[in-house]
């Protein structure tokens, strides 16, 4: 299938189209999105075909009637952090700006498969956030009280309640990290990461957005303080407005426009074991150990931890971080001992100096920045696209992302969940 001749009656995914295609030997499925040549000019150009860039384009077309839009992706759709993360979706934040933004995203997640006509496999299985001592429980209770005051769900589980929910944790008297209790956000969960990119790509394409892969942005055209287009590996493309949504490459792309950002790019790794029978139907997180563990639908045990610890664009990590994650996982869940590690991988993370994202206008007219996602951008995906589309369409932030301005670092309105200083390793 090429060009705009797609027959959307075949393309709409349903049990009927599945049956029809099954009878035809599944040979008739069309491509999920077109592969157009770039036009010479677009009303809006989005740089970066990760979840955020694609969601932005989708909501520009769906909610703001702006359909002359291109998403320019250097590699392929789903090749960035969208397809590399541990897929945790939650909205259990303390500060109001974070809490209301992520809660808005979570509400969009709850209707996303239907909205996109693509199953993103959003599974609200909760996040069991362990505390290992009384002090940890006090801190967690304070956070969850804040959540409840903001109208967001949360509960505290006692040690016995955690034992019923996750019996495989080490509850023995000699446990290295004893379980004191846990916080849970029942509406939180996980989703299928690739499906999020593919679903947004397909839905944006259906509304007329051009998704252009293998198209690297190499520079900006800026005249009189206003952006007028981008230079790319596939030629110059004029643009009324340009949005940057390149995650780990925020610093390098912004530098092409002469901007220096409060962001460092760091490497985060994740890993999976060989598949085993289902034993874990929720996400287990230990903030103290900086660890998160879940089990995928394929049965693999999926584990992630902290950054490798120094600036990196390599998408490939080193051993110490893997050893930390595995040893902590085995200490918490002794039954993991003896499992084989099957794969490890890494993604490059845009770490801001306060741990909150930047979704903002920039000093250059009609150039907008969406970045600084730290560890947490997957869960933000629909919300991020939603507010970024609004910011671009109206040339002004939406109330939900007013606090995420680039100039908060100069005005002193930083958003540090933990109330500590300028370090590029917060959440």
């Amino acid at each position, binding site marked *: 299938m090429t060009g705009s001749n797609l027959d959307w009656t075949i393309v709409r995914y349903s049990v009927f189209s599945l049956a029809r295609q099954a009878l035809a030997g599944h040979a008739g499925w069309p491509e999920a999105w077109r592969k157009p040549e770039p036009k010479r000019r677009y009303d809006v150009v989005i740089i970066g075909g990760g979840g955020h860039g694609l969601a932005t384009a989708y909501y520009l077309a769906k909610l703001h009637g702006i359909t002359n839009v291109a998403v320019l992706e250097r590699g392929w759709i789903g090749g960035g952090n969208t397809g590399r993360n541990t897929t945790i979706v939650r909205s259990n934040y303390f500060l109001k700006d974070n809490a209301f933004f992520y809660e808005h995203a979570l509400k969009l997640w709850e209707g996303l498969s239907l909205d996109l006509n693509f199953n993103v496999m959003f599974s609200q299985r909760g996040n069991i956030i362990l505390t290992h001592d009384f002090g940890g429980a006090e801190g967690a209770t304070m956070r969850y009280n804040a959540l409840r005051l903001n109208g967001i769900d949360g509960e505290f589980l006692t040690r016995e309640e955690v034992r019923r929910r996750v019996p495989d944790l080490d509850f023995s008297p000699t446990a290295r990290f004893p379980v004191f209790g846990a916080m849970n956000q029942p509406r939180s969960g996980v989703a299928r990461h690739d499906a999020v990119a593919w679903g947004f790509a397909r839905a944006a394409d259906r509304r007329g957005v051009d998704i252009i892969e293998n198209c690297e942005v190499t520079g900006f055209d800026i005249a009189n303080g206003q952006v007028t287009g981008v230079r790319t590996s596939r030629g110059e493309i004029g643009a009324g407005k340009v949005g940057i949504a390149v995650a780990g*490459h925020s*610093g*390098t792309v912004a*530098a092409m426009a002469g901007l*220096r*950002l*409060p*962001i*460092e*790019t760091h490497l985060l790794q994740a890993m999976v074991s060989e598949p085993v029978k289902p034993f874990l139907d929720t996400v287990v997180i230990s903030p103290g150990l900086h660890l998160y563990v879940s089990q995928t639908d394929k049965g693999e045990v999926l584990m992630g931890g902290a950054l490798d*610890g*120094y*600036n*990196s*664009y*390599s998408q490939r990590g*080193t*051993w*110490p971080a893997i050893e930390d994650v595995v040893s902590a996982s085995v200490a918490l869940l002794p039954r993991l001992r003896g499992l084989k590690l099957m794969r490890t991988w890494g993604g490059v993370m845009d770490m801001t*100096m306060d741990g909150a994202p930047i979704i903002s206008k920039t000093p250059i007219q009609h150039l907008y920045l969406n970045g600084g996602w730290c560890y947490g951008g997957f869960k933000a995906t629909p919300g991020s696209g939603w507010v970024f589309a609004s910011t671009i369409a109206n040339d002004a932030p939406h109330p939900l992302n007013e606090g995420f301005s680039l100039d908060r*670092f*100069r005005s*002193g309105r930083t958003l540090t969940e933990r109330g500590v200083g*300028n370090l*590029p390793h917060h959440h």
Partner: protein
Amino acid sequence: MLLISCPFCGERPEDEFGFGGDASVRHQGGGDGTEPASVEQYADYLYLRDNPKGRHAEYWVHRYGCRRWLVAERDTVTHEIFSVKSASEGGTG
């Protein structure tokens, strides 16, 4: 595993070291007796960083070794380390 050549201790694995970030960051005003920094200068000092894809001059501290602060020049894509100096000689900050 990175191997970092500490000028005092020789080649050591990365987990003996702590990372200190962009070595081009300079404290603005005040400390060296010049004019105090403006709010903007101070905010830039606190928050803005060079974040290159490629060669990067950065601080490391040999935490579980001689405990000296070092400045390394490293490629942020290949992790090749070009030089490691004592921060008191090689530092730019």
